[in-house]
């Protein structure tokens, strides 16, 4: 696999898995505005994943859906940070803040890439991510003096760049995420 395809898959997997985890707040966030916010962020992240998979799929001669859903859990390249199911609000916010910081740095690098397709898509994604960062910064300001939040940031920070192996939580999510697709015969159209 080319270096470019590997890089695209790494980012796409981060965004797909995080999108799924963020969507777990739909209907149960601590208050309605955050229900809307995390649902919308999840939708954006999965949209970014789709665009990145499409670019990778062209290089690899496959489709975005096959890349997103037909690989084994061990083949995903996402970071340890995005895999975890975090039903505690302070841990979800800690992940949100850590992810958006790391993602901003990654997008800055990609926007400067010599590869015009990668740089163009990164710039497109970054326009949307501005709003995720504003949301993360707002929550960081609100919680930064809370010991529970600080502990969650310390706990999760080492996972940001962790890409060797996966936790059991990814296996569980993968089973849910691919359930419908695995239950249908190949080639089923909807």
């Amino acid at each position, binding site marked *: 696999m080319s270096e470019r395809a590997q890089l695209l898959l790494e980012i796409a997997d981060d965004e797909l898995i995080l999108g799924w985890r963020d969507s777990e707040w739909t209907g149960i966030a601590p208050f309605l*505005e955050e229900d*809307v*916010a995390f*649902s*919308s*962020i999840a*939708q*954006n*992240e*999965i*949209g*970014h994943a*789709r*665009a990145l998979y*499409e*670019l990778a799929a062209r290089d690899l001669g496959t489709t975005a859906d096959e890349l997103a859903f037909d690989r084994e859990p061990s083949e995903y390249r996402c970071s340890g940070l995005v895999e975890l199911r975090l039903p505690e609000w302070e841990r979800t916010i800690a992940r949100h803040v850590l992810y958006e910081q790391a993602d901003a740095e990654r997008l800055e690098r990609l926007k400067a890439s010599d590869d015009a*397709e990668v740089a*163009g*898509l990164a*710039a*497109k*994604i970054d*326009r*949307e991510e*501005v*709003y995720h960062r*504003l*949301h993360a*910064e*707002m929550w960081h300001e609100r919680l930064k003096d809370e010991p529970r939040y600080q502990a969650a940031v310390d706990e999760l920070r080492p996972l940001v760049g962790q890409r060797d192996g996966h936790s059991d939580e990814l296996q569980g999510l993968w089973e849910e995420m691919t359930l419908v697709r695995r239950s249908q015969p190949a080639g089923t159209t909807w």
Partner: protein
Amino acid sequence: MVTAEQVWEALAEVPDPEIPVISVVDLGVVRDVRIEDERVRVEFTPTFLGCPALEVMRAQMAERIEALGAHPEVEVVLDDSWSTDRITPEGREKLTAAGFAPPTPRGEGTTLVQLQSNGFRCPYCGSRETALENIFGPTPCRSLRYCRSCRQPFEQFKTI
């Protein structure tokens, strides 16, 4: 044979599925129309990448072009060529008339301080006494605001 002008006219009647008061042409997402014999090639850009309206827009554009007797090829371009600055002046007026505050020009940047400021006009009463309720809204492209003058919540198109 159809002309590019006829195609642009037909596309100007394709509504945004989520904000039907404005068309895909008003929205500025149609980047190019090219006529190659019986084929009509349309390049269009997503607004937000996760926008579920994308496939609906693509299908509706193709349908309009088929109605002109041509063979449509509608291609989604995944680059950075769309921003809210591409919404036409007519599109901005239609948004306001439908109760959406149009996006601010990109040159002004986007920070939390700006979003929380009084800089956005209420589309109902014109007051600038408005407050940010939520950066996010019912679709990826919108934020929620509240007008303190006429006590009406309204949606603002995000600047991207």
